[in-house]
């Protein structure tokens, strides 16, 4: 029975059924299924979609659909994990956001989902995030990685600004910085002093692992 629920939960994410995924997450908890096991099947499903995207077999809407289904079920499971005081192994803490002047959220949200699927603890600051808010969150959550997204060429320089403040606040050596977004290039990322760049959301999640040698 519990296996069937977990299989269906995975299937719901693979078929981008948000409501179904949330209902199955609730059902799993009602049936006393270990929330860590539920979390595992969910992250496995999202990784599967991410890998399919990486191989060019799936498209952006597939990532959006899987991410949405995951996001609808994830808080239900996470709440139970917290309630039980269970310790979930984490690869590290990542603070994520879209820079000031930019309201594009899809890429950033997918990176958040895929980072969570990889096993990171993710704090999503949202969009139009000022440099000050990034710095505050890096301090507050003791971030291992700061991930900034900027879709537009005109907003990308904000990433440079945040890195400059990290240096000023003596935080630069304590946090890895990864950047992404449609207008960015490897050259730009190096130029602003970021530690890493990847053009895709699944690539970004793998990059985070590499940055922390995990």
């Amino acid at each position, binding site marked *: 029975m519990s296996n069937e629920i977990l299989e269906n939960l995975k299937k719901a994410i693979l078929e981008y059924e948000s409501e179904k995924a949330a209902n199955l997450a609730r059902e799993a908890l009602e049936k006393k299924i270990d929330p860590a096991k539920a979390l595992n099947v969910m992250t496995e499903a999202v990784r599967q979609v991410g890998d399919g995207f990486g191989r060019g077999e799936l498209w952006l809407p597939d990532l959006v659909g899987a991410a949405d289904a995951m996001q609808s079920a994830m808080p239900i499971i996470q709440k139970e994990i917290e309630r039980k005081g269970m310790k979930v192994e984490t690869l590290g803490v990542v603070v994520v956001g879209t820079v000031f002047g930019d309201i594009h959220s899809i890429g950033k949200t997918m990176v958040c989902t895929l980072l969570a699927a990889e096993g990171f603890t993710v704090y999503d600051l949202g969009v139009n995030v000022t440099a000050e808010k990034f710095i505050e969150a890096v301090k507050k959550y003791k971030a291992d990685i700061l991930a900034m997204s900027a879709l537009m060429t005109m907003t990308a320089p904000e990433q440079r600004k945040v890195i400059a403040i990290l240096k000023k606040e003596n935080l630069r050596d304590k946090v890895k910085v990864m950047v992404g977004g449609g207008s960015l*290039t490897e050259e730009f990322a190096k130029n602003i002093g970021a530690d890493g760049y990847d053009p895709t959301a699944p690539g970004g999640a793998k990059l985070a692992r590499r940055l922390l040698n995990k």
Partner: protein
Amino acid sequence: MTKFKVPIEKPKPDINRFLDIMKGKIIPDKPPLVEYLIDDALMKPILENMLGRKWVETSDKIDYMGGQMDFSKENIKTVNAWLDNQIAFWYHMGYDFVRVEASLTLPAISLKVADTAKGVKGVTRAWQDETKGVIRSWDDFEKYPWPKITENDFYIHRYICDHLPDGMGFISCHAGGVYEHLSRLMSYEGLCYTLYDDPALFKAVTDKIGGLIYEYDKHLLELDKLTLILQGDDYGYSEQVLIPPEDIRKYFLPWHKKYAQLSHEKGKPYYLHCCGKVDAIMEDLINDVKIDGKHSFQDGVASIFDAKKLYGDRICLLGGVDMDKLARYEPENLRKYIRQIINKCAPGGKFAIGAGNSISSYIPVENYLTMCDTALTY
């Protein structure tokens, strides 16, 4: 400041020559200039400081794609003065055509944030909401205030046609294509879900927009002085197409095929501006839709050098100067880079030089002038 060949005091535009170059009938010693859209942030200083004209704001609403102008009696002089500036800009900057576009009123949810581009102060940019659309159900679709096309929608087009300098052509389109307006009305996330959950609604909204643009194009093509339609419809981003290629073929390309047919029946070419990596649908655009030209080529995404090899003998290629390089390069490096593009892409004709995408507010005026100057003095 460097002395540029542009703006030109007494230009000699020749739209027929431009068209012949694009068809490969004339192989020019240097390619003509082309642009898709040019931001006010660049037009304003050039018009004011280099052409000695007075800048005019149109009071159009930024949250509608292409803007919506106030054509009231009280405001019409302002609209005319704005159009005069547009004509003067394209004319004196060395283009063979004026390119202006407008959209029907298709209200959507816009998010406004400050423009952070260097040198742009106090300007707000409107971005479409990616997660929440105004059409999420059949009920929303039925209740949406779909516009009716009226003669007033073509005031600016008629004005331009009536005031074109000798030799100048007029290039236009409906501001925003079928997919672009679908993503405005449904949001990107919304259209992704609808594509899987309710394909009939997806098709209904697409066809409603597609039909409106078709009717709009019919009116446009009635204008004798309209040179051609250069329609924008972005299907890609830096890595691939935004939705699966089979869905683009199923829902959107049939509309572009109709627009192209309509243009061809009037003996006019049909060009498409389409951003991003769209390799997956390029052969469809050329062989099935039968576009005559394509705009938007950027290094690392869809380079003009690759496009020349792959498609340069079948369609004309427009633009190609990478936006990142145009924004960041020092003028001397920019000149070298632009000359390199001309060296490789001009042979054989069917090529016009310009930015790989719209000239946005973050492009330094000096770099834009350098690009035009390099092309005109090649």
